[in-house]
């Protein structure tokens, strides 16, 4: 297969956009429906990635390829899900302030553990030895295939989130987000619903972390900083928390703008790209959050017409 047409860096840029779409979709369930502000996205993302990496590189596997990889993916996803269960339990009956402190605390705790447990994680030096579970020839071909798998995973997340909007479960989540005491008085176990939501969304975030770490073949503590959380939140807020498509549109307009348009198609001097552009990117993201929430709080796509959705659901 001739892949000369494909710029390797461009592929990484598109990979990042799709990954952020996935994170923003999962965050949509939490912020958009249940209105739980998860500011610790990167904690779950990083926990999954590191658990996967430790399992894959530190265990002396006697199984043949690709089993060590696949089992490690499952391990990483489950560990992230368990992390979500723990955090969910801690914060499910706290208010927004408590949720913020709990999720931020979790993300910080993950960074501390990654830094101190260097026997498992490689500490500040990072963890290498992460590779694709297949080899179909050139590096670029492998990367393209891995990107294809990411698209499938994010597509599945999108489908799930869209289905949740059309199911009794989604209605329960919206109800809990709107008026938790009222939902409880109707017999809805709000606490349990939040707990499971956190577990599932966190497992998904962990899986995306695993996919990202594998693509980049490297895991370092700097990679699990607040900028991952920021990207997901900006994408969600800009696109709007009401519609499922909001996360997709938002991620393309924010991360896509910088990772693809600015990186490849705008004629900035080369020297800008190492320092000025990443800083500018974060500034623009920060400003976008303020401006969107002040001027157009529902995001670019605006309000979802739930009345229309409900009518359509029951006609079909």
């Amino acid at each position, binding site marked *: 297969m001739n892949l000369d047409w494909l710029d390797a860096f461009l592929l990484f840029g598109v990979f990042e956009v799709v990954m952020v779409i996935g994170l923003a979709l999962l965050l949509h369930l939490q912020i958009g429906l249940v209105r739980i502000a998860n500011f610790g996205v990167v904690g779950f993302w990083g926990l999954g990635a590191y658990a996967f990496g430790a399992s894959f590189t530190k265990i002396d596997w006697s199984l043949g390829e690709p089993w060590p990889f696949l089992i490690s993916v499952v391990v990483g996803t489950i560990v992230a899900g368990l992390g979500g269960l723990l955090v969910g339990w801690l914060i499910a*009956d*706290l208010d*927004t302030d408590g949720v913020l402190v709990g999720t*931020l605390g979790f993300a910080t705790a993950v960074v501390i553990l990654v830094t101190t447990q260097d026997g498992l994680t490689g500490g500040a030096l990072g963890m290498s030895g992460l590779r694709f579970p297949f080899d179909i020839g050139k590096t670029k071909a492998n990367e393209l295939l891995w990107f294809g798998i990411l698209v499938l995973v994010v597509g599945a997340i999108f489908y799930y989130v869209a289905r949740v909007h059309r199911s009794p479960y989604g209605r329960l989540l919206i109800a809990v987000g709107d008026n*938790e005491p*009222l939902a409880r008085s109707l017999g809805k176990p709000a606490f349990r619903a939040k707990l499971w939501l956190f577990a599932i969304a966190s497992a998904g975030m962990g899986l995306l972390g695993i996919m990202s770490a594998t693509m980049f073949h490297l895991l370092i503590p700097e990679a699990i900083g607040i900028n991952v959380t*920021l990207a997901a939140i900006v994408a969600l807020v800009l696109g709007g928390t009401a519609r499922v498509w909001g996360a997709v549109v938002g991620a393309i307009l924010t991360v896509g703008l910088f990772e693809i348009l600015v990186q490849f198609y705008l004629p900035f001097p080369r020297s800008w790209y190492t320092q000025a552009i990443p800083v500018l990117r974060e500034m623009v993201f*920060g400003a976008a959050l303020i401006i969107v*929430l*002040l001027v157009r709080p529902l995001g670019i796509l605006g309000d979802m017409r739930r009345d229309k959705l409900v009518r359509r659901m029951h006609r079909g």
Partner: protein
Amino acid sequence: MDFITDSVVIGLTQHAPLILAAIGFALIYRLSGLINVAYSETITLGAYIGMWINTTFDLNFYTILLPTGIIAGLISVATYLTIFRPAKQRNVGALEMIIISFGLSIFLRHGLQFVFGYPVRFYDVPPPDTIRVLGIGVSSFRLAALGSVVALALLLFWFIQRSGYGLQIRALASDENLAQVSGIRPLTVTVLIWFIAGVAGGLAGAFYGVGSAVAPLLGWRQFLFIFLVVMVGGAKNLGGVIVVGAATGVALAAMNLQFGQALYAQLALIIAFVLLLKVRGRRFADLGKV
């Protein structure tokens, strides 16, 4: 006994900026219920402004504290007037308010990087004098930080208890409309609170900065602990914030002496505080409005 005095002296002096910052953060939190994530940048700003004044005008550290505090206070007021006040007037929800402050935090943090450049910066000061306190050598800068905490605490105590403003603040915090009707000028009181909070944050930043280095993440690294201290200690009054802040400093110092690893101390504290909030939240969980 040595271990205890060591922990107390080191904890109180090393972490005095934490208490200072927590008082400022708590003032805004208690007045308006706002979790201002961008408060971490007020601290960072203080560190940068102090460094800039110090290196540009070649002034000694104690002289720069006053202008640093005032400038940080003014910037704090500016963020209130340009962002948080308009947001409140548009009835932005609690969750959105936090996201806005998060956005401002990110914006300011990277904006500072843009203005002051990427490398870490340092204060240009002679090595501080070492003063012996209960047999332990403490830098004079750290003692000054502790002194500022005491001064600010006394000032606020006087301000809230003795002057008429305390009553106004309490009235404003519980019901703004009612307060307005009873002749309180919400804008004056609110601006004053944001100013004092900014001064406290800016000074904390200057103390943090002179103690090590000035970097864009300086304030953000402290934010979680400030936040935890205020959430755990600030439920009732500012006294609680000071007590919990001091206890946090001592606990961090003690665990640091014990484990020899600052990160473990932080981890233990994060877990302890979040569990404490969980237990407290549980007690009120059933008290719904239905």
